[in-house]
């Protein structure tokens, strides 16, 4: 690049040269710009630093520090209660080794965590699928359909991102109650799964629409237009073209939404009302903390680790869908 001969380039384009001087000047300009400046800019120095091994070492150390407490909980949850009382979790590696799964058996059966786990699934699965689906439809319309007020509506939805959840709790609960009264309790939204599904859908939508709309609008418009000319309806374009191409965005959205619903305590407590039969893990674990305080670590650590397990599984199983270059070969440039 450095030593591009301007005459070489010019030779390949004989017709570009009739008036000579002007074009050569342009070529020289281009060639000049291609020569890197002798001193490094701050950005380049930063890039060199980033690629150096010392930075890698720092990152590894930070990651280890970050992971240590989680690892401690993991080890503690497999130790017998007497050992937990006697020594710190790192002593578990010194002989004699005592590991047990009885803590897990205890929380799952006696403390009702098994039931809570199922409840969490009942809440989280529709609480993830519903907003993702609705947001995908909405994002499609915001990107590829023309209707009056489209941009304003989209802006309004994005603006909802700044509304704190706490502000909505009482009005929404009021609404739920009045829906119940108006329908003679045939539609029961308070204390029911339906109510919490709707709540999670509503709370998740602004971010989901925003994320997917940005992703959709980055897809080449030629692709969508080509499908329109090929005879696809909006539904056809959505299902056959857009969804398969949006797998990376959908995967990350599903991870975000699932983890947020799974870890949610506030919304569940408010709309489900703390009934142990319908409570998810978060509510049950919080109750365990209240009843066992700081004494019975074996119960708390195994409960905590149970509640952590599924998000980890989800994250690692969806990770492989973060494919780079999903659009390769579709359009040029």
């Amino acid at each position: 690049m450095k030593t591009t001969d301007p005459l070489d380039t010019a030779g390949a384009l004989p017709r570009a040269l009739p008036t000579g001087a002007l074009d050569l000047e342009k070529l020289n300009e281009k060639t000049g710009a291609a020569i890197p400046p002798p001193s490094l800019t701050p950005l380049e120095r930063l890039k060199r630093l980033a690629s150096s091994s010392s930075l890698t070492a720092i990152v590894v150390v930070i990651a280890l520090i970050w992971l240590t407490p989680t690892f401690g909980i993991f080890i503690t949850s497999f130790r017998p209660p007497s050992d937990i009382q006697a020594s710190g979790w790192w002593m578990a590696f010194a002989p004699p080794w005592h590991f047990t799964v009885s803590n897990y058996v205890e929380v799952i059966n006696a403390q009702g965590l098994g039931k809570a786990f199922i409840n969490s699934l009942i809440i989280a699965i529709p609480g993830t699928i519903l907003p993702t689906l609705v947001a995908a439809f909405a994002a499609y319309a915001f990107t590829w359909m023309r209707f009056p007020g489209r941009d304003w509506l989209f802006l309004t939805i994005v603006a909802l991102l700044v509304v704190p959840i706490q502000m909505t709790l009482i009005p929404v609960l009021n609404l739920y109650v009045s829906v119940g009264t108006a329908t003679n309790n045939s539609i029961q939204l308070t204390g029911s799964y339906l109510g919490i599904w709707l709540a999670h859908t509503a709370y998740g939508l602004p971010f989901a629409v925003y994320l997917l709309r940005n992703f959709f609008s980055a897809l080449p418009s030629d692709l969508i237009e080509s499908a329109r000319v090929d005879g696809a309806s909006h539904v056809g374009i959505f299902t056959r073209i857009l969804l398969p191409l949006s797998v990376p965005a959908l995967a990350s959205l599903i991870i975000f939404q699932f983890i947020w619903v799974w870890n949610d305590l506030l919304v569940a407590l408010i709309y489900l009302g703390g009934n142990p039969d319908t409570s998810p893990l978060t509510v049950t674990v919080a109750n365990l903390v209240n009843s066992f305080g700081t004494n019975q670590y074996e119960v708390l650590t195994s409960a905590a680790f149970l509640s952590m397990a599924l998000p980890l599984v989800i994250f690692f199983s969806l990770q492989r869908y973060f494919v780079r270059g999903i659009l390769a070969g579709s359009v040029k440039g």
Partner: protein
Amino acid sequence: MADVRFDHVYKRYGSNTPVITDLNLHINDHEFLVLVGPSGCGKTTALRMIAGLEEISEGNLFIGDRLVNDVAPKDRDIAMVFQNYALYPHMSVYENMAFSLQRHHVSKAEIDQRVRRAADMLGIKDYLNRKPRALSGGQRQRVALGRALVRDPKVFLLDEPLSNLDAKLRVQTRTEISRLHQQTQTTFVYVTHDQVEAMTMGDRIAVLNAGVIQQLGKPQELYERPANLFVAGFIGSPSMGFFNGSLAWSPGGDALITIGSGEAAHTLTLKGAATGQNAEQSTPNGQGVIFGVRPEDLRLASDDAENTLPGVVDVVEHLGNEQLVYLRMEGVVTLENAETKGVTARIAPDVTLRPGEQVSLAVEVAHAHVFDAKTGERIV
């Protein structure tokens, strides 16, 4: 198979000046029509209006006998090849080509038969199971053509399909598209900014500039009798050379063009130029004109020959069968849209010319072009 008719069509974005102004164009059935013009001239917009991807602000558009202003793209029975291929990246070549047939509920057996026939025509049947990313640029463009071909559409729309290919592939694919047109006998509308593509492929060419058709006609007509300065500068490679001059009429109806002034003035005589044209009435004596001459209409001559102009050799390009000589001459006008600036002459390859050499060039006045300097319209 159908004709396409633009009837006083306008396209406006907001309240700005229209992108397309009063477009009237009848594209005949089975015709290969090329829309050509510089970027931003509205040619792609016109094509997208046929496809239904662009709304029509005013006027009517017919495909066959059907008014299609408000018909959705999927119901127009047209196929389009995009500049960027626009292949579906997650589908194999076969699925890409079958996509539209599936949308139109064609039976599986027939889809298979049509896809294989099209793949055969385009020489891509070995790649049917590959994804687009495993194909080269030329192969991708052929898949894009195939995707349109399987449709057997009423109208074939092509939006600069060759612009992303390298020079060699472009020439090959150009021939292939011409052959496809002969085989399918469908109406083709082809958009390009490349006048060579337009000249080589089109049955007729519509030259567009700033949303207005400058001239519509057969390639040879455009080349031999460009209607105005824009077309004259746009068509032809290297471009026509242009000179500032003034026009006078001789009593016998000859046009006398004077180029240069004072001692450097040279007068060219265009014999019988006024015949049957009424040009004499519309253009008075002394009127400023632009005189145009194509590279092949300039010949080396002795100083005392008729209708000569002096020039100085600037650059010489040898092409083997001929040489292109770029000249510095008196009174030359540079048009913005012309591919090459200045005056060029095609000279036989056996003459040796050096940069800086003084030459005398005889103008083939029978093939010369005279345009009104103010309006740019053709006079002779």
